[in-house]
Protein backbone atom coordinates (compact mmCIF):
# COMPACT_ATOMS: atom_id res chain seq x y z
CA UNK A 1 0.00 0.00 0.00
CA UNK A 2 1.50 3.25 -1.06
CA UNK A 3 1.16 6.34 1.07
CA UNK A 4 0.56 9.92 -0.03
CA UNK A 5 3.08 12.72 -0.05
CA UNK A 6 2.17 16.00 1.62
CA UNK A 7 2.74 19.29 -0.14
CA UNK A 8 4.36 21.74 2.28
CA UNK A 9 5.08 25.41 1.79
CA UNK A 10 8.72 26.45 2.28
CA UNK A 11 7.70 28.10 5.52
CA UNK A 12 4.76 26.77 7.52
CA UNK A 13 3.31 28.23 10.70
CA UNK A 14 3.67 25.39 13.19
CA UNK A 15 3.96 25.11 16.93
CA UNK A 16 6.65 22.86 18.40
CA UNK A 17 4.31 19.90 18.80
CA UNK A 18 3.09 19.98 15.22
CA UNK A 19 6.61 20.50 13.95
CA UNK A 20 7.68 17.34 15.78
CA UNK A 21 4.66 15.42 14.43
CA UNK A 22 5.53 16.48 10.88
CA UNK A 23 9.09 15.28 11.41
CA UNK A 24 7.78 11.89 12.57
CA UNK A 25 5.62 11.73 9.44
CA UNK A 26 8.50 12.55 7.16
CA UNK A 27 10.73 9.94 8.86
CA UNK A 28 7.96 7.36 8.16
CA UNK A 29 7.83 5.87 11.65
CA UNK A 30 6.67 2.26 11.64
CA UNK A 31 5.22 2.21 15.13
CA UNK A 32 4.08 4.86 17.59
CA UNK A 33 2.95 3.49 20.93
CA UNK A 34 1.65 6.34 23.03
CA UNK A 35 -0.46 7.61 25.88
CA UNK A 36 -1.64 11.22 25.92
CA UNK A 37 -0.27 13.74 28.41
CA UNK A 38 -0.23 17.54 28.41
CA UNK A 39 1.57 19.29 26.76
CA UNK A 40 2.97 16.61 24.43
CA UNK A 41 -0.33 15.02 23.34
CA UNK A 42 -0.57 16.82 19.96
CA UNK A 43 2.65 15.18 18.74
CA UNK A 44 1.23 11.66 18.78
CA UNK A 45 -2.22 12.96 17.86
CA UNK A 46 -0.63 14.49 14.78
CA UNK A 47 1.04 11.19 13.89
CA UNK A 48 -2.29 9.35 14.34
CA UNK A 49 -4.02 11.84 12.04
CA UNK A 50 -1.34 11.48 9.36
CA UNK A 51 -1.65 7.71 9.67
CA UNK A 52 -5.44 7.81 9.36
CA UNK A 53 -5.16 10.08 6.32
CA UNK A 54 -2.77 7.66 4.60
CA UNK A 55 0.33 9.83 4.83
CA UNK A 56 2.16 7.08 6.72
CA UNK A 57 2.36 3.31 6.57
CA UNK A 58 2.58 2.33 10.20
CA UNK A 59 0.90 1.28 13.39
CA UNK A 60 -0.49 3.37 16.21
CA UNK A 61 -0.63 1.35 19.42
CA UNK A 62 -3.01 2.67 22.05
CA UNK A 63 -1.91 1.65 25.53
CA UNK A 64 -3.07 2.20 29.09
CA UNK A 65 -0.10 4.15 30.47
CA UNK A 66 3.24 5.70 29.56
CA UNK A 67 4.98 2.70 31.08
CA UNK A 68 3.18 0.53 28.52
CA UNK A 69 3.78 3.12 25.80
CA UNK A 70 7.55 2.84 26.12
CA UNK A 71 7.26 -0.94 26.58
CA UNK A 72 5.39 -1.10 23.28
CA UNK A 73 8.08 1.01 21.65
CA UNK A 74 10.79 -1.30 23.02
CA UNK A 75 9.02 -4.37 21.64
CA UNK A 76 8.46 -2.77 18.25
CA UNK A 77 12.02 -1.51 18.06
CA UNK A 78 13.50 -4.88 19.08
CA UNK A 79 11.29 -6.48 16.44
CA UNK A 80 12.95 -4.30 13.82
CA UNK A 81 10.89 -1.15 13.30
CA UNK A 82 11.56 2.60 13.32
CA UNK A 83 9.83 3.74 16.47
CA UNK A 84 9.05 7.01 18.23
CA UNK A 85 6.71 8.43 20.85
CA UNK A 86 6.22 11.54 23.00
CA UNK A 87 5.61 12.35 26.64
CA UNK A 88 5.91 14.91 29.43
CA UNK A 89 6.31 15.22 33.18
CA UNK A 90 4.46 12.55 35.20
CA UNK A 91 4.14 10.39 32.11
CA UNK A 92 7.87 10.63 31.62
CA UNK A 93 8.37 9.69 35.26
CA UNK A 94 6.21 6.62 34.74
CA UNK A 95 8.31 5.74 31.70
CA UNK A 96 11.62 5.92 33.51
CA UNK A 97 11.71 2.25 34.46
CA UNK A 98 11.47 1.27 30.80
CA UNK A 99 13.87 3.98 29.57
CA UNK A 100 16.73 2.00 31.05
CA UNK A 101 15.53 -1.14 29.23
CA UNK A 102 15.51 0.74 25.93
CA UNK A 103 19.02 2.13 26.33
CA UNK A 104 20.46 -1.09 27.79
CA UNK A 105 19.02 -3.06 24.89
CA UNK A 106 20.51 -0.46 22.55
CA UNK A 107 17.27 0.26 20.73
CA UNK A 108 17.25 3.43 18.60
CA UNK A 109 13.89 4.80 19.77
CA UNK A 110 13.21 8.54 19.53
CA UNK A 111 11.28 10.12 22.37
CA UNK A 112 9.95 13.68 22.14
CA UNK A 113 9.86 15.07 25.66
CA UNK A 114 7.88 18.28 26.01
CA UNK A 115 9.33 19.51 29.27
CA UNK A 116 6.99 20.16 32.17
CA UNK A 117 7.20 20.41 35.95
CA UNK A 118 6.90 17.35 38.18
CA UNK A 119 4.18 17.18 40.84
CA UNK A 120 3.44 17.83 43.65
CA UNK A 121 1.91 20.39 43.45
CA UNK A 122 0.32 19.43 40.16
CA UNK A 123 1.32 21.72 37.34
CA UNK A 124 1.05 21.38 33.57
CA UNK A 125 3.46 24.20 32.76
CA UNK A 126 7.05 24.01 31.73
CA UNK A 127 10.30 23.50 33.55
CA UNK A 128 13.15 21.05 33.12
CA UNK A 129 12.42 18.65 35.99
CA UNK A 130 11.52 15.77 33.66
CA UNK A 131 14.51 16.44 31.44
CA UNK A 132 16.76 16.19 34.50
CA UNK A 133 15.04 13.02 35.64
CA UNK A 134 16.14 11.24 32.47
CA UNK A 135 19.77 12.25 32.57
CA UNK A 136 21.21 8.98 33.93
CA UNK A 137 18.97 6.75 31.81
CA UNK A 138 21.56 6.15 29.10
CA UNK A 139 19.65 8.06 26.41
CA UNK A 140 21.10 10.72 24.17
CA UNK A 141 19.38 14.02 24.99
CA UNK A 142 19.04 16.91 22.54
CA UNK A 143 17.42 20.24 23.38
CA UNK A 144 15.35 22.37 20.99
CA UNK A 145 14.74 26.04 21.84
CA UNK A 146 12.07 26.72 19.18
CA UNK A 147 9.55 24.94 16.90
CA UNK A 148 12.06 25.09 14.05
CA UNK A 149 14.60 23.26 16.18
CA UNK A 150 12.00 20.76 17.41
CA UNK A 151 11.43 19.89 13.75
CA UNK A 152 15.10 19.74 12.76
CA UNK A 153 16.40 17.89 15.81
CA UNK A 154 14.02 14.97 15.26
CA UNK A 155 15.82 14.19 12.00
CA UNK A 156 19.18 14.49 13.75
CA UNK A 157 17.91 12.22 16.52
CA UNK A 158 16.97 9.39 14.14
CA UNK A 159 20.17 9.76 12.21
CA UNK A 160 22.37 9.46 15.32
CA UNK A 161 20.30 6.89 17.22
CA UNK A 162 20.04 4.50 14.28
CA UNK A 163 23.72 4.66 13.38
CA UNK A 164 24.96 1.09 13.76
CA UNK A 165 27.96 2.22 15.81
CA UNK A 166 25.69 4.05 18.26
CA UNK A 167 22.35 2.26 18.55
CA UNK A 168 21.21 4.26 21.53
CA UNK A 169 17.78 5.84 22.03
CA UNK A 170 17.50 9.61 21.79
CA UNK A 171 15.27 12.22 23.41
CA UNK A 172 14.38 15.52 21.78
CA UNK A 173 13.40 18.09 24.39
CA UNK A 174 11.35 21.24 23.92
CA UNK A 175 9.85 23.59 26.52
CA UNK A 176 6.25 22.90 27.49
CA UNK A 177 3.86 25.54 26.06
CA UNK A 178 6.68 28.05 25.45
CA UNK A 179 7.83 25.99 22.46
CA UNK A 180 5.21 23.27 22.15
CA UNK A 181 2.20 25.61 21.84
CA UNK A 182 3.75 28.74 20.33
CA UNK A 183 3.27 28.86 16.58
CA UNK A 184 6.14 30.30 14.58
CA UNK A 185 7.37 30.21 11.04
CA UNK A 186 9.13 26.88 10.46
CA UNK A 187 11.31 26.31 7.39
CA UNK A 188 10.36 22.91 6.01
CA UNK A 189 11.92 20.23 3.87
CA UNK A 190 9.92 18.43 1.23
CA UNK A 191 9.08 14.81 2.03
CA UNK A 192 11.72 13.24 -0.19
CA UNK A 193 14.54 15.47 1.00
CA UNK A 194 13.60 14.92 4.63
CA UNK A 195 13.39 11.16 4.20
CA UNK A 196 16.68 11.03 2.33
CA UNK A 197 18.40 12.58 5.36
CA UNK A 198 17.38 9.75 7.70
CA UNK A 199 17.24 7.04 5.02
CA UNK A 200 15.64 3.61 5.23
CA UNK A 201 15.67 2.01 8.64
CA UNK A 202 18.29 -0.74 8.83
CA UNK A 203 17.49 -2.92 11.83
CA UNK A 204 20.23 -4.84 13.64
CA UNK A 205 19.62 -8.11 15.50
CA UNK A 206 15.90 -7.72 15.02
CA UNK A 207 13.64 -10.33 16.57
CA UNK A 208 11.76 -10.88 13.32
CA UNK A 209 14.91 -12.12 11.59
CA UNK A 210 14.13 -15.82 12.00
CA UNK A 211 17.34 -16.92 10.31
CA UNK A 212 19.42 -15.38 13.09
CA UNK A 213 17.49 -15.81 16.32
CA UNK A 214 18.56 -13.74 19.31
CA UNK A 215 17.39 -13.25 22.86
CA UNK A 216 16.82 -9.61 23.87
CA UNK A 217 17.11 -8.15 27.36
CA UNK A 218 18.86 -11.12 28.92
CA UNK A 219 19.60 -11.67 32.59
CA UNK A 220 23.30 -11.35 33.39
CA UNK A 221 23.73 -10.80 37.14
CA UNK A 222 27.20 -9.90 38.43
CA UNK A 223 28.81 -12.04 35.71
CA UNK A 224 28.45 -9.51 32.88
CA UNK A 225 26.18 -6.66 33.95
CA UNK A 226 29.14 -4.38 34.63
CA UNK A 227 30.67 -5.10 31.21
CA UNK A 228 27.44 -4.26 29.40
CA UNK A 229 27.10 -0.98 31.30
CA UNK A 230 30.77 -0.16 30.73
CA UNK A 231 30.29 -0.64 27.02
CA UNK A 232 27.22 1.57 26.97
CA UNK A 233 29.04 4.28 28.94
CA UNK A 234 32.06 4.04 26.67
CA UNK A 235 29.94 4.40 23.57
CA UNK A 236 28.13 7.42 25.01
CA UNK A 237 31.37 9.09 26.06
CA UNK A 238 33.39 8.40 22.91
CA UNK A 239 31.19 7.54 19.93
CA UNK A 240 28.11 9.74 20.14
CA UNK A 241 29.52 13.28 19.90
CA UNK A 242 31.38 12.68 16.60
CA UNK A 243 28.20 11.20 15.11
CA UNK A 244 26.13 14.17 16.28
CA UNK A 245 28.71 16.54 14.81
CA UNK A 246 28.59 14.71 11.46
CA UNK A 247 24.80 14.77 11.48
CA UNK A 248 24.84 18.52 12.23
CA UNK A 249 27.31 19.10 9.38
CA UNK A 250 25.27 17.04 6.91
CA UNK A 251 22.11 18.79 8.01
CA UNK A 252 23.71 22.16 7.42
CA UNK A 253 24.76 21.07 3.93
CA UNK A 254 21.19 19.98 3.21
CA UNK A 255 19.25 22.88 4.72
CA UNK A 256 21.70 25.66 5.55
CA UNK A 257 20.61 25.53 9.18
CA UNK A 258 23.59 25.19 11.49
CA UNK A 259 23.54 23.48 14.86
CA UNK A 260 26.35 23.12 17.37
CA UNK A 261 26.84 20.72 20.26
CA UNK A 262 27.25 23.82 22.42
CA UNK A 263 25.66 27.00 21.05
CA UNK A 264 27.74 30.13 21.65
CA UNK A 265 26.33 33.63 21.32
CA UNK A 266 28.58 36.69 21.64
CA UNK A 267 31.20 34.51 23.30
CA UNK A 268 34.25 35.63 21.23
CA UNK A 269 35.36 38.24 23.78
CA UNK A 270 32.86 37.70 26.61
CA UNK A 271 33.86 38.39 30.20
CA UNK A 272 30.65 37.07 31.70
CA UNK A 273 28.42 34.26 30.48
CA UNK A 274 25.09 32.70 31.25
CA UNK A 275 24.79 28.96 30.60
CA UNK A 276 21.23 27.71 30.13
CA UNK A 277 18.89 25.53 28.08
CA UNK A 278 15.58 25.76 26.25
CA UNK A 279 13.65 28.95 25.56
CA UNK A 280 15.63 30.93 28.15
CA UNK A 281 18.60 30.88 25.76
CA UNK A 282 16.76 33.27 23.45
CA UNK A 283 15.80 35.62 26.30
CA UNK A 284 19.39 35.58 27.56
CA UNK A 285 20.63 36.46 24.06
CA UNK A 286 18.34 39.51 23.96
CA UNK A 287 19.61 40.70 27.32
CA UNK A 288 23.24 39.97 26.45
CA UNK A 289 22.87 42.24 23.40
CA UNK A 290 21.44 45.01 25.58
CA UNK A 291 24.26 44.58 28.12
CA UNK A 292 26.78 44.95 25.31
CA UNK A 293 25.12 48.27 24.47
CA UNK A 294 26.04 49.31 28.01
CA UNK A 295 29.64 48.23 27.54
CA UNK A 296 29.38 44.94 29.44
CA UNK A 297 30.93 42.02 27.59
CA UNK A 298 28.11 39.55 28.09
CA UNK A 299 27.63 36.22 26.32
CA UNK A 300 25.35 33.21 26.33
CA UNK A 301 26.11 29.51 26.11
CA UNK A 302 23.24 27.17 25.30
CA UNK A 303 23.52 23.41 25.64
CA UNK A 304 22.25 21.61 22.55
CA UNK A 305 23.35 18.17 23.75
CA UNK A 306 22.70 17.37 27.41
CA UNK A 307 23.66 13.69 27.37
CA UNK A 308 26.36 12.79 26.71
CA UNK A 309 27.48 15.96 28.47
CA UNK A 310 29.71 18.01 26.16
CA UNK A 311 32.62 18.43 28.59
CA UNK A 312 35.25 19.49 26.04
CA UNK A 313 32.94 21.81 24.10
CA UNK A 314 31.88 23.49 27.35
CA UNK A 315 35.49 23.88 28.48
CA UNK A 316 36.34 25.40 25.12
CA UNK A 317 33.35 27.78 25.14
CA UNK A 318 34.06 29.04 28.66
CA UNK A 319 37.85 29.04 28.74
CA UNK A 320 38.30 32.82 28.57
CA UNK A 321 35.36 34.07 30.64
CA UNK A 322 35.73 35.54 34.12
CA UNK A 323 32.33 34.78 35.61
CA UNK A 324 29.70 32.18 34.78
CA UNK A 325 26.10 31.73 35.88
CA UNK A 326 24.59 28.26 35.59
CA UNK A 327 20.82 28.53 35.18
CA UNK A 328 18.96 25.45 36.32
CA UNK A 329 15.25 25.14 35.61
CA UNK A 330 14.62 22.22 37.93
CA UNK A 331 13.97 21.95 41.62
CA UNK A 332 17.37 20.90 42.92
CA UNK A 333 15.96 19.26 46.08
CA UNK A 334 18.97 19.30 48.33
CA UNK A 335 21.92 20.10 46.07
CA UNK A 336 23.05 22.63 43.50
CA UNK A 337 21.36 22.20 40.10
CA UNK A 338 22.57 19.67 37.54
CA UNK A 339 24.00 22.31 35.23
CA UNK A 340 25.94 23.90 38.08
CA UNK A 341 27.35 20.51 39.08
CA UNK A 342 28.25 19.51 35.53
CA UNK A 343 29.93 22.85 34.83
CA UNK A 344 31.87 22.67 38.08
CA UNK A 345 32.96 19.13 37.15
CA UNK A 346 33.90 20.11 33.61
CA UNK A 347 35.90 23.20 34.59
CA UNK A 348 37.54 22.11 37.84
CA UNK A 349 40.75 20.69 36.40
CA UNK A 350 41.17 23.33 33.72
CA UNK A 351 43.16 26.56 33.89
CA UNK A 352 40.04 28.68 34.09
CA UNK A 353 39.77 31.25 36.84
CA UNK A 354 36.09 31.78 36.12
CA UNK A 355 33.83 32.46 39.09
CA UNK A 356 30.87 30.10 39.03
CA UNK A 357 27.49 30.74 40.59
CA UNK A 358 24.25 28.83 40.35
CA UNK A 359 20.70 30.11 39.82
CA UNK A 360 17.39 28.28 39.99
CA UNK A 361 14.64 29.86 37.87
CA UNK A 362 11.34 29.38 36.14
CA UNK A 363 9.97 26.41 38.10
CA UNK A 364 6.48 25.33 37.08
CA UNK A 365 6.25 27.82 34.22
CA UNK A 366 7.30 30.97 36.15
CA UNK A 367 8.59 33.53 33.65
CA UNK A 368 12.24 34.41 33.37
CA UNK A 369 12.11 38.12 32.49
CA UNK A 370 14.67 40.40 30.92
CA UNK A 371 14.83 42.29 34.23
CA UNK A 372 15.88 39.09 36.02
CA UNK A 373 18.64 38.49 33.52
CA UNK A 374 19.80 42.11 33.55
CA UNK A 375 20.18 41.90 37.34
CA UNK A 376 21.94 38.57 36.98
CA UNK A 377 24.45 39.90 34.45
CA UNK A 378 25.07 42.88 36.77
CA UNK A 379 25.82 40.48 39.63
CA UNK A 380 28.24 38.56 37.43
CA UNK A 381 29.96 41.82 36.43
CA UNK A 382 30.21 42.80 40.10
CA UNK A 383 31.83 39.44 40.82
CA UNK A 384 34.34 40.04 38.05
CA UNK A 385 35.14 43.55 39.32
CA UNK A 386 35.64 42.25 42.87
CA UNK A 387 37.63 39.24 41.68
CA UNK A 388 35.57 36.87 43.82
CA UNK A 389 32.04 35.52 44.12
CA UNK A 390 30.12 38.08 46.19
CA UNK A 391 26.84 36.22 45.97
CA UNK A 392 25.90 32.83 47.44
CA UNK A 393 26.59 29.83 45.22
CA UNK A 394 22.90 29.11 44.83
CA UNK A 395 20.11 31.68 44.41
CA UNK A 396 16.47 31.50 43.35
CA UNK A 397 15.26 33.93 40.69
CA UNK A 398 11.79 35.41 41.01
CA UNK A 399 10.41 33.29 43.87
CA UNK A 400 7.95 35.23 46.08
CA UNK A 401 8.84 35.97 49.69
CA UNK A 402 12.21 36.65 51.29
CA UNK A 403 15.25 36.06 49.12
CA UNK A 404 16.12 32.36 48.93
CA UNK A 405 19.83 31.54 48.73
CA UNK A 406 22.13 28.81 49.94
CA UNK A 407 25.76 27.75 50.19
Amino acid at each position, binding site marked *: MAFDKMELRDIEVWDGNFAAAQALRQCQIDVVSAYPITPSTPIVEGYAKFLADNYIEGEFVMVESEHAAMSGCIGASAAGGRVATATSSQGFALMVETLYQASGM*RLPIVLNVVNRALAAPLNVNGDHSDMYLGRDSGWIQLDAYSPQEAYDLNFIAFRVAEDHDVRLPCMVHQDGFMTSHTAQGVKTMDDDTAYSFVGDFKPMNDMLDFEH*PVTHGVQTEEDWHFEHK*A*RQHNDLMTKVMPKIQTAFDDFEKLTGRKYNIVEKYDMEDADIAVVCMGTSVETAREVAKEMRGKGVKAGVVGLRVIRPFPFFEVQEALKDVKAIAALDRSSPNGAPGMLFNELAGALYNTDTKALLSGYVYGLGGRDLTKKHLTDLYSELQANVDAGKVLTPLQQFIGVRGPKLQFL
Partner: protein
Amino acid sequence: MANTGWDEFEIGAMLRTFEGEAGDIAGTLQEDRNYTENSSFRASVADWRIEKPVFNKDFCIDCQFCWVYCPDISIISRDKKMIGIDMDHCKGCGICVEVCPTNPKSLLMFPEKADEETEIANWPAKETKEK
Protein backbone atom coordinates in the same frame (compact mmCIF):
# COMPACT_ATOMS: atom_id res chain seq x y z
CA MET B 1 33.16 -16.46 28.44
CA ALA B 2 34.15 -15.70 32.03
CA ASN B 3 37.07 -13.53 30.93
CA THR B 4 35.31 -11.69 28.13
CA GLY B 5 36.01 -7.95 28.35
CA TRP B 6 33.42 -5.20 28.05
CA ASP B 7 34.60 -4.38 24.55
CA GLU B 8 34.13 -7.96 23.34
CA PHE B 9 30.42 -8.32 24.06
CA GLU B 10 27.59 -8.21 21.62
CA ILE B 11 26.02 -4.77 22.07
CA GLY B 12 22.70 -4.56 23.82
CA ALA B 13 21.99 -7.02 26.67
CA MET B 14 21.49 -9.62 23.97
CA LEU B 15 22.47 -13.23 23.42
CA ARG B 16 22.89 -14.68 19.95
CA THR B 17 21.63 -18.23 19.95
CA PHE B 18 23.18 -20.03 17.02
CA GLU B 19 26.24 -19.69 14.85
CA GLY B 20 25.38 -19.08 11.19
CA GLU B 21 22.12 -20.25 9.65
CA ALA B 22 19.46 -21.46 12.01
CA GLY B 23 16.92 -22.62 9.47
CA ASP B 24 16.33 -26.19 10.62
CA ILE B 25 17.02 -25.87 14.34
CA ALA B 26 13.84 -27.71 15.28
CA GLY B 27 15.00 -30.73 13.27
CA THR B 28 18.54 -30.68 14.68
CA LEU B 29 19.40 -32.71 17.77
CA GLN B 30 20.45 -30.73 20.80
CA GLU B 31 24.02 -31.99 20.81
CA ASP B 32 24.40 -31.16 17.11
CA ARG B 33 23.18 -27.60 17.41
CA ASN B 34 25.63 -24.89 16.64
CA TYR B 35 25.27 -22.77 19.78
CA THR B 36 27.39 -19.62 19.96
CA GLU B 37 29.70 -18.73 22.82
CA ASN B 38 27.21 -15.98 23.67
CA SER B 39 24.15 -18.20 23.89
CA SER B 40 21.88 -19.02 26.74
CA PHE B 41 22.98 -22.63 26.23
CA ARG B 42 26.64 -21.92 26.92
CA ALA B 43 26.04 -19.06 29.33
CA SER B 44 25.79 -20.12 32.95
CA VAL B 45 22.15 -19.19 33.32
CA ALA B 46 21.54 -21.99 35.82
CA ASP B 47 24.04 -20.74 38.39
CA TRP B 48 21.32 -20.15 40.92
CA ARG B 49 19.62 -23.57 40.64
CA ILE B 50 18.95 -24.95 44.13
CA GLU B 51 16.64 -27.80 43.15
CA LYS B 52 16.91 -30.17 40.23
CA PRO B 53 14.43 -32.53 38.61
CA VAL B 54 15.24 -36.25 38.89
CA PHE B 55 13.88 -38.61 36.24
CA ASN B 56 12.65 -42.12 37.10
CA LYS B 57 12.07 -44.04 33.88
CA ASP B 58 10.18 -46.88 35.64
CA PHE B 59 6.96 -44.86 35.68
CA CYS B 60 7.40 -42.76 32.53
CA ILE B 61 4.82 -43.25 29.80
CA ASP B 62 6.67 -41.10 27.25
CA CYS B 63 3.80 -38.69 26.95
CA GLN B 64 6.28 -35.84 26.20
CA PHE B 65 4.45 -33.33 28.35
CA CYS B 66 7.69 -32.38 30.12
CA TRP B 67 9.42 -31.87 26.76
CA VAL B 68 6.61 -29.63 25.54
CA TYR B 69 6.42 -27.54 28.68
CA CYS B 70 10.07 -27.07 29.65
CA PRO B 71 10.73 -23.38 28.95
CA ASP B 72 14.45 -24.00 28.29
CA ILE B 73 14.38 -27.08 26.03
CA SER B 74 16.24 -28.97 28.77
CA ILE B 75 14.32 -32.25 28.43
CA ILE B 76 16.20 -34.65 26.20
CA SER B 77 13.91 -36.72 24.05
CA ARG B 78 14.78 -39.08 21.19
CA ASP B 79 12.27 -40.77 18.86
CA LYS B 80 9.47 -39.61 21.11
CA LYS B 81 11.09 -41.27 24.13
CA MET B 82 12.00 -39.30 27.23
CA ILE B 83 15.68 -39.94 27.96
CA GLY B 84 16.61 -37.56 30.70
CA ILE B 85 17.41 -33.96 31.58
CA ASP B 86 20.14 -31.72 30.28
CA MET B 87 21.47 -30.58 33.65
CA ASP B 88 23.83 -28.00 32.12
CA HIS B 89 20.84 -26.11 30.89
CA CYS B 90 18.02 -26.86 33.37
CA LYS B 91 17.31 -23.88 35.65
CA GLY B 92 15.31 -25.87 38.19
CA CYS B 93 11.93 -24.24 37.73
CA GLY B 94 10.00 -27.46 38.34
CA ILE B 95 7.49 -27.00 35.53
CA CYS B 96 8.26 -30.47 34.11
CA VAL B 97 7.39 -32.02 37.47
CA GLU B 98 4.10 -30.13 37.64
CA VAL B 99 2.95 -31.35 34.22
CA CYS B 100 4.08 -34.99 34.57
CA PRO B 101 0.79 -36.97 34.65
CA THR B 102 1.90 -40.37 35.97
CA ASN B 103 1.19 -41.77 39.41
CA PRO B 104 3.58 -41.62 41.08
CA LYS B 105 5.23 -38.82 39.08
CA SER B 106 8.15 -39.82 36.90
CA LEU B 107 9.86 -36.50 37.63
CA LEU B 108 10.35 -35.03 41.09
CA MET B 109 12.33 -32.07 42.41
CA PHE B 110 15.22 -32.75 44.82
CA PRO B 111 17.88 -30.55 46.36
CA GLU B 112 20.73 -29.77 43.97
CA LYS B 113 23.18 -31.89 46.01
CA ALA B 114 20.90 -34.97 46.24
CA ASP B 115 22.25 -38.23 44.86
CA GLU B 116 20.04 -39.36 41.96
CA GLU B 117 20.53 -43.13 42.51
CA THR B 118 19.48 -42.84 46.15
CA GLU B 119 16.43 -40.74 45.38
CA ILE B 120 15.28 -43.11 42.63
CA ALA B 121 15.74 -46.08 45.03
CA ASN B 122 13.47 -44.34 47.56
CA TRP B 123 10.92 -43.14 45.00
CA PRO B 124 7.47 -42.53 46.56
CA ALA B 125 4.79 -45.19 46.08
CA LYS B 126 1.61 -44.78 44.07
CA GLU B 127 -0.93 -42.54 45.77
CA THR B 128 -4.35 -44.08 46.31
CA LYS B 129 -7.31 -41.88 45.54
CA GLU B 130 -9.58 -41.26 48.50
CA LYS B 131 -13.19 -41.95 47.77
